[in-house]
C-alpha cells in the first residue's frame, strides 16, 4: 500500500535545518540566506546560516534531518469505495464483504460519489489544486488480504495536487506564542484499503478478514519539508483535526482510520540528501514522534560510526521504543502499475464548466463543495484569539482535546466571569484534573453549568480563589451538589463583614508586634506575612486584597 516513492530532488528548495544534536527541533537555525538567528535560549551549538558557498567544515557534527509523510485516512462513508457493502469498525469477520470486495470473477467497481466528494473537500481544505480529470490505476502486489492481487489507486493523475498544510509549533511555555509552519501537500489520491490479516505463527497460518477490503482511503502525500518528530506529529495532528472538522474521516488512529508512514533521512547541510528509510504503520501520534526521532538518531550514530544507511522499510517497536528492519524489500518491489480498465476517467466540474441539463446525481461541482466547507481549525483558533483575547497557545490546547472547545463555549454561555478567567480555569484546573485521572472531556464529573456557577461565585467575590479550588475538588467527587450548596455547607463564603475583619487584623497586629515593626521600618514584604496571618485566622475566608487595605489603613494610623 506504500505510495509511489516521494521524489527527493527539490533542487531549488532551501531546507530549514533542525539542529538535531543541539536541542529540541523547533529551536532551529534560520533558513538559507537569512542572517537572523532565531534560536531560542540556550543552544550552545553555533548555528551558522547555511549559504551554498559556505561548506560545512569537516568533522563538524551537525546533521539535518529530512522527513516526508504518507498518510492514509479512511473515508467516513456508509459504503465502500467501489461496492455497496458497509463500512464499519469491529463487525463479525467477513460480514461486510460483497462479491466485488472478495474479487469474484465478473464483478466490477462502481464508484461511490461520497468518497469523491470527501476527496475534493479534503483537497480544498488543504489548498490543493483539484484535477478536473483524474485517473484510476491498478497497483499489483500479492498478499492474502488483497484478493484481487491489485489495489485500485490513483498513480498517474490523482484527484488533488500541490496543496499545503499549515500547523503551529509551540514557541515555549513562557510566551504562549505559536510559530506557524507549513508543509507542502504533494497529492491526495483515492484508493482502496486492504483486508486484515491475523497471523497465527503457532499453527503457521493467516486468518483473513475482508471487512476492511475496499474501504475508501485518502492517501495524503506530504513533501519532505519536516525535520523532526515533533513537527511531523504536530502536522499529522493538524491534518487529523481538519479531517474531523470536515467529517471526511473520523481519523481515529487507534482504530486504524489514520495511518502514517514516514520517510526519513539525514545529511550534512549543504550536501546531498542521505539515503532514506521508511518507517511503516505508525498508529499513534506519540509513537510517530518517537519513531521519527529515534530513527534520526539511529541514522546519525550509524553514519558517525562509519556505517551506512540502507534504503529499507522499518517498523517501530512500541515496547522497546526503537525501529527494527522489516527485511521485506530486499529487491525493489515492482508494482506493475497499469490503467484500471474498468473505470473511465473521473471528471469533475466547476460552476463554469458544468454541463447544462446534466443529471445532478452524476456530476460533482467543485465550487458547490467549496461553499459547504465548514470552519477549519485554524480559523476557529483565530476566532478564539480575537473574540476572547486568549493566547494562541491556549486556542491550540482548546482544540487539541476532544470536546474541550465545546465545554469551554458552554461555560462561557452561562457565566458572567471574564473569558480570561474561564480559559485559565478550563485549561489549568479542569484539564489538569482530567489528565490526572486520564479522563476524556465527555467523562468529566463536572458539567459546564457547574463550572459556570462556580466561576460566577468567584467573579462576584462570594468566594476566594482558593475556596473555589476547594469547591471544584468537591464537585469532582460526583456527589451531585451544586457549587452554591458546597459553599454554604462548608462555609466557604468570603467574610463580607468588614467590622469583623478589622477585628481580626487588629488582634493579629497586636499579637505580632515584631512584624508590625518590620513594616514600619520599611520592609515591603513584612505586610504579606501579616496578610497571611490574618487569612489563617479567618480560615481562608477573607479576601487578601481587603485585608491588605485594612492593614495598611491601621498601620498608617
Amino acid at each position, binding site marked *: 500500500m506504500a505510495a509511489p516513492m516521494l521524489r527527493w530532488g527539490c533542487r531549488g528548495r532551501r531546507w530549514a535545518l533542525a539542529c538535531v544534536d543541539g536541542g529540541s527541533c523547533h529551536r532551529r537555525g534560520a533558513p538559507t540566506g537569512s542572517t537572523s538567528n532565531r534560536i531560542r535560549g540556550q543552544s550552545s551549538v553555533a548555528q551558522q546560516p547555511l549559504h551554498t558557498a559556505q561548506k560545512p567544515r569537516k568533522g563538524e557534527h551537525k546533521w539535518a534531518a529530512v522527513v516526508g509523510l504518507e498518510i492514509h485516512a479512511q473515508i467516513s*462513508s*456508509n*459504503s465502500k469505495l467501489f*461496492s*455497496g*457493502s*458497509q463500512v464499519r469498525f469491529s463487525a*463479525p*469477520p*467477513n*460480514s*461486510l*464483504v*460483497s*462479491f*466485488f470486495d*472478495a*474479487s*469474484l470473477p465478473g464483478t466490477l467497481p*462502481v*464508484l*461511490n*460519489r461520497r468518497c*469523491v466528494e470527501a476527496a475534493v473537500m479534503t483537497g480544498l481544505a488543504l489548498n490543493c489544486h483539484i484535477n478536473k480529470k483524474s*485517473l484510476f490505476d491498478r497497483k*499489483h502486489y*500479492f*498478499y*492474502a488480504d488483497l*484478493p*484481487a*492481487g*491489485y489495489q485500485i489507486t490513483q498513480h498517474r493523475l490523482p484527484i488533488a495536487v500541490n496543496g499545503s498544510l499549515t500547523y503551529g509549533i509551540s514557541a515555549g511555555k513562557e510566551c504562549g506564542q505559536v510559530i506557524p509552519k507549513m508543509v507542502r501537500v504533494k497529492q491526495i489520491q483515492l484508493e482502496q484499503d486492504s483486508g486484515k*490479516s491475523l*497471523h497465527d505463527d503457532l499453527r*503457521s*497460518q*493467516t*486468518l*483473513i*478478514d*475482508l471487512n476492511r477490503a475496499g474501504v475508501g482511503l485518502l492517501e495524503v502525500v506530504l513533501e519532505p519539508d519536516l525535520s523532526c518528530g515533533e513537527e511531523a506529529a504536530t502536522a499529522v495532528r493538524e491534518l487529523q483535526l481538519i479531517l474531523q472538522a470536515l467529517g471526511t474521516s473520523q481519523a481515529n488512529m487507534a482504530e486504524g482510520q489514520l495511518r502514517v508512514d514516514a520517510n526519513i533521512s539525514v545529511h550534512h547541510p549543504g550536501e546531498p540528501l542521505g539515503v532514506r528509510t521508511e518507517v511503516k504503520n505508525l498508529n499513534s501520534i506519540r509513537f510517530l514522534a518517537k519513531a521519527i526521532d529515534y530513527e534520526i538518531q539511529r541514522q546519525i550514530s550509524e553514519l558517525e560510526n562509519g556505517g551506512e544507511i540502507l534504503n529499507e522499510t522499518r517498523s517501530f517497536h512500541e515496547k522497546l521504543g526503537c525501529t527494527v528492519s522489516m527485511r*521485506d524489500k*530486499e*529487491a525493489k518491489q*515492482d508494482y*506493475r502499475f*497499469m*490503467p*484500471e*480498465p*474498468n*473505470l*473511465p*476517467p*473521473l*471528471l469533475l466540474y466547476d460552476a463554469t464548466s458544468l454541463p447544462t441539463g446534466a443529471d445532478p*446525481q*452524476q456530476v*460533482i461541482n467543485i465550487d458547490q463543495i467549496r461553499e459547504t466547507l465548514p470552519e477549519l481549525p485554524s480559523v476557529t483558533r483565530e476566532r478564539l484569539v480575537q473574540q476572547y483575547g486568549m493566547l494562541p497557545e491556549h486556542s491550540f490546547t482548546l482544540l487539541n482535546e476532544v470536546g474541550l472547545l465545546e465545554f469551554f463555549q458552554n461555560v462561557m454561555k452561562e457565566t458572567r466571569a471574564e473569558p480570561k478567567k474561564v480559559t485559565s480555569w478550563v485549561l489549568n484546573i479542569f484539564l489538569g484534573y482530567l489528565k490526572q485521572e486520564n479522563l476524556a472531556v465527555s467523562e468529566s464529573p463536572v458539567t459546564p453549568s457547574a463550572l459556570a456557577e462556580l466561576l460566577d461565585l468567584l467573579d462576584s467575590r462570594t468566594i476566594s480563589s482558593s475556596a473555589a479550588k476547594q469547591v471544584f475538588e468537591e464537585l469532582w467527587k460526583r456527589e451531585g451538589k451544586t457549587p452554591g450548596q458546597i459553599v454554604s455547607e462548608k462555609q466557604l463564603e468570603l467574610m463580607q463583614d468588614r467590622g469583623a475583619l478589622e477585628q481580626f487584623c487588629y488582634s493579629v497586629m497586636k499579637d505580632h508586634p515584631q512584624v508590625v515593626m518590620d513594616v514600619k521600618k520599611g520592609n515591603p514584604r513584612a505586610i504579606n506575612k501579616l496578610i497571611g496571618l490574618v487569612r489563617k485566622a479567618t480560615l481562608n475566608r477573607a479576601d487578601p486584597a481587603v485585608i491588605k487595605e485594612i492593614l495598611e489603613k491601621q498601620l498608617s494610623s
Partner: protein
Amino acid sequence: MLARALWLGLRVPLGGPRGFTSKTDPQGSGRITAEVIEHLERLALVDFGSREAVARLEKAIAFADRLRAVDTDGVEPMESVLEDRCLYLRSDNVVEGNCADELLQNSHRVVEEYFVAPPGNIPLPKLDEQEPFPHS
C-alpha cells in the same frame, strides 16, 4: 485465491506495455531463466515446481509475444475502451454484504468466519539454497 493470484501473476505482465519478454530469449524461443522464475514465484507466492508449469508459462509468453507483431508506432495508447464514457457515480447506500457463508464456500480452509491463508509473504528459499532447477 492462490489460483487466482497465479493467473494474474502470469497474465498481468503480458498485458502491460512491456512484458518480461526482454528477460527471456530475445529470439522469442520463450525459454525462461531460473532467475525469472524465482522472481515470479516471489511476486506471486506460487511455487512453479514442475517442468509442466514452466512449460505452460513459456507457452503463455510466446502467445502474448505475438502482440509485438502489431505496429503501434505513433498510436497513442487508450486508457480503456471506455475512456470517453462517463464514470457512473453511485449514491452512498449500503446494499450488499452479509454473505460470509456464501463467500467462505470458496475457501479451501476456514476458521470461524475467517478465510485461512498460508502465513504472510514469507520469502521462499533463496535460489542457491534450492535444489538445482531443471532449467538452469
